[in-house]
């Protein structure tokens, strides 16, 4: 009995990894049509498996939930891999940005379905104004040479606060124009049809990502100047501060609908396999295109040797900040997708201890390997939440207490056996960089024959 479940679960993990491999392989085909067909096919296969056909579903709700969690976690972990694996900045703050994204997106859609457009308006205007203000300040600061980081941080902070205030004011002014169209939750207005809700949901996910990115810009600007371990602790602090603010979101922060420690209920469950797949692929594609561009190479150069990177004309501080902001953007997207899958947010989810999970995944998969991160995320979730859960509950009522005893032991063993991570720095198909096979060339004059 147990053996059957063990084999079944193992087979499932292997099948998922094969799925990822197949997807990456087909996306790695040169033909654009093959790529599109592969993408659609990969989406359709799972969609089909999730569809109820005459009472039979290949993947039940349990698998479905794990799948969505894995998709959200993939975005978070890829973001962390960009920051830590590719750029070399040891960050424990990813979980905080995940939480920020989750709460920000949830607030938009929650308010929207309850007949309040302010969430969307304020955050939309805020991210827009904030971006403009940050770019403006940046342009102005370009005129100075050797400006201290703390001063520029203060200026950016003040700018962002002003932008935020203006956005809140404008949002409140504009709100009455839209509100009548929304209706209430009981009687949805014309702008609250499921189709519109999906649009708002997609907007909210993107806005949540941008919002997380902006916060990470403000936080990262001064903190990225710290040495690696110190940076790690400061970002751990960030996660804890964010968690504290979540617990106090209804007392210290003015968001009664988030209900602080009681948890935010009533978030519409708008995440579908399409949106989870869409955003995950979006993150994967952005990340892959980024890494294999010149900018991506400069990020990796910073990881390899900061001093040499400086000497190569790379703006090291800028590159670090860029990776941090993009990584946090991914985390924000992941959080937003997660929030609309689970429909309920509690600060307990964003506890700093859980914040080690993305780190464990990234190290497991192999630092600097996108493939490793993606497979490790799916493997990790389907091992811990899938396999161990299914197996242990088969083994009696006492066994489930062993889940978190077996997990660290597995962690230890894997780390001792493969300290460099499961896949090292291997990439599959699509995720590989563009390969150049140099044409044979006529050799230009060799060095020491031309002189002498």
């Amino acid at each position, binding site marked *: 009995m147990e053996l059957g479940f063990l084999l079944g679960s193992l087979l499932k993990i292997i099948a998922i990894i094969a799925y990822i491999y197949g997807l990456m392989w087909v996306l790695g085909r040169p033909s654009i049509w093959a790529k599109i067909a592969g993408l659609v096919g990969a989406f359709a296969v799972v969609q089909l498996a999730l569809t109820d056909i005459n009472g039979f579903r290949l993947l039940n709700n349990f698998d479905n939930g794990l799948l969505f969690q894995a998709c959200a976690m993939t975005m978070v972990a890829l973001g962390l891999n960009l920051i830590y694996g590719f750029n070399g900045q040891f960050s424990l703050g990813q979980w905080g940005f995940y939480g920020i994204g989750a709460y920000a997106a949830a607030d938009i859609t929650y308010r929207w379905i309850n007949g309040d457009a302010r969430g969307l308006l304020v955050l939309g205007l805020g991210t827009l104004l904030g971006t403009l203000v940050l770019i403006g300040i940046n342009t102005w600061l370009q005129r100075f040479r*050797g400006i201290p980081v703390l001063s520029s941080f203060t200026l950016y902070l003040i700018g962002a606060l002003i932008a935020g205030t203006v956005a809140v004011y404008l949002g409140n002014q504009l709100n009455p124009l839209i509100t009548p169209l929304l209706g209430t939750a009981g009687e949805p207005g014309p702008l609250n049809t499921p189709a519109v809700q999906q649009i708002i949901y997609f907007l909210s996910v993107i806005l949540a990502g941008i919002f997380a990115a902006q916060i990470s810009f403000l936080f990262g600007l001064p903190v990225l100047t710290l040495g690696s371990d110190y940076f790690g602790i400061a970002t751990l602090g960030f996660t804890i501060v964010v968690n504290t603010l979540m617990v106090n979101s209804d007392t210290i922060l003015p968001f009664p609908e988030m209900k602080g420690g009681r948890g935010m209920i009533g978030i519409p469950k708008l995440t579908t396999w399409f949106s989870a797949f869409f955003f995950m692929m979006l993150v994967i594609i952005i990340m892959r295109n980024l890494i294999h561009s010149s900018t991506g190479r400069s990020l990796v150069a910073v990881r390899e040797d900061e001093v040499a990177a400086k000497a190569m004309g790379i703006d090291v501080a800028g590159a670090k900040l860029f990776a941090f902001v993009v990584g946090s953007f991914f985390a924000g997207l992941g959080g937003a997708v997660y929030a609309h899958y689970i429909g309920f947010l509690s600060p307990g989810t964003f506890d700093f201890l859980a914040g080690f999970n993305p780190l464990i995944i990234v190290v497991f998969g192999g630092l600097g390997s996108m493939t490793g991160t993606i497979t490790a995320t799916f493997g990790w979730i389907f091992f811990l939440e899938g396999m161990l859960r299914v197996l242990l509950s088969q083994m009696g009522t006492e066994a489930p207490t062993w889940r*978190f*005893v077996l997990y660290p032991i597995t962690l*230890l063993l894997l780390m*001792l056996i493969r300290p460099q991570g499961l896949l090292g720095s291997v990439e599959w198909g699509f995720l590989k960089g563009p390969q150049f096979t140099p044409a044979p060339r006529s050799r230009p004059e060799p060095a020491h024959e031309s002189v002498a």
Partner: protein
Amino acid sequence: MQTVQVPSTPVVYHRQQPLLWVGRGFFAILGLLVLYILGTNLIKNPTLFAQIFISGLQLGFVYAMIALGYTMVYGIVKLINFAHGDVFMVGAFTSFYAVSKYRLHQWPNTVFPNLDPGIGVIIGAITVILLSMLVCMILAITIERVAYKPLRDAPRISALITAIGVSFFLEFYGALNFVFSPRFIPYERPFEVVAWYIKDGIHRVLPGQQAPENSITFSNIFLIIIGVSILIQLLLQYLVRRTKIGIAMRACSYDRQAARLMGIDVDRVISFTFAVGAAFAGAGGVLYAIAYSLIWTQLGILPGLKAFVAAVLGGIGSIPGAFVGALIMGQAEAMTMGYISTPMRDAVAFTILIIVLLLRPTGIFGEPEKEKA
């Protein structure tokens, strides 16, 4: 890099940094705000302030005992030993079993019935502490051998992940019913807590009575924690400054390769460092359990984290730094709890940490990072 001592004070040209005042002003305003809050409260009610200060001290000295282990281990192997807080927990549990189950704290009076009970309790309590320290040392050495040593040449992050793994393992293995059980267990103290109050001299608070208004109270636990913590600090200073193994520890943390060339068995020194840190954490665990009289398997997580933050604040790798950092953390938390709001205390503690790091990137006592290129 070889440089030359310049006899007279050199003329240093301060290069004009534009907009320097903006950043400085921002932090100055923050600082003034904190001073204002603390100052008004001090004037408004000095005894309350003193009372909060005392609880901050107690907290700080407990953190100091744990922080020492973090800072020593980090100094020598550059590893954030996340399992350290759980070693602290094991120390508390060991003393629990010694006291409640085996009545170890009563052995002097059982063996020597004529002994003065006061002295008996003292000897008994010291035995319990020593036993916990010993158990923690053995545990730490085992952890080091099994989980960290094989990864000494691997990337640093691998050892960090195993440290997290060990931490989870101790917490949840301990929570199994046949190990420590997951309960919140009331802890039987080996001796009773006596409180005193200060108002026109020092008086004892009689059981069941309230200390008079506007007085400052403190307990023997507070005195013991401060005493033991300072004793440990002195002991460690002696160990590190005067003994051969202590000097070898410093030598290893500065340059492991060179230390090996001196004939120092670096692995043994590292194990020793883990053991010493764990012993202090074990003693801390016992005192913590005695002070708060409640133990459970996850009790080490938060003190461990706070102590680690304290070590970073003080400049990780520096022993006096860990001590000072712990005291600052203790005060910051107590003051936040007293004057702002308790849930904000982690936020405030970490904000202080981040600000200190921004102003002094390697902590208060940290040595500046070496020159590059």
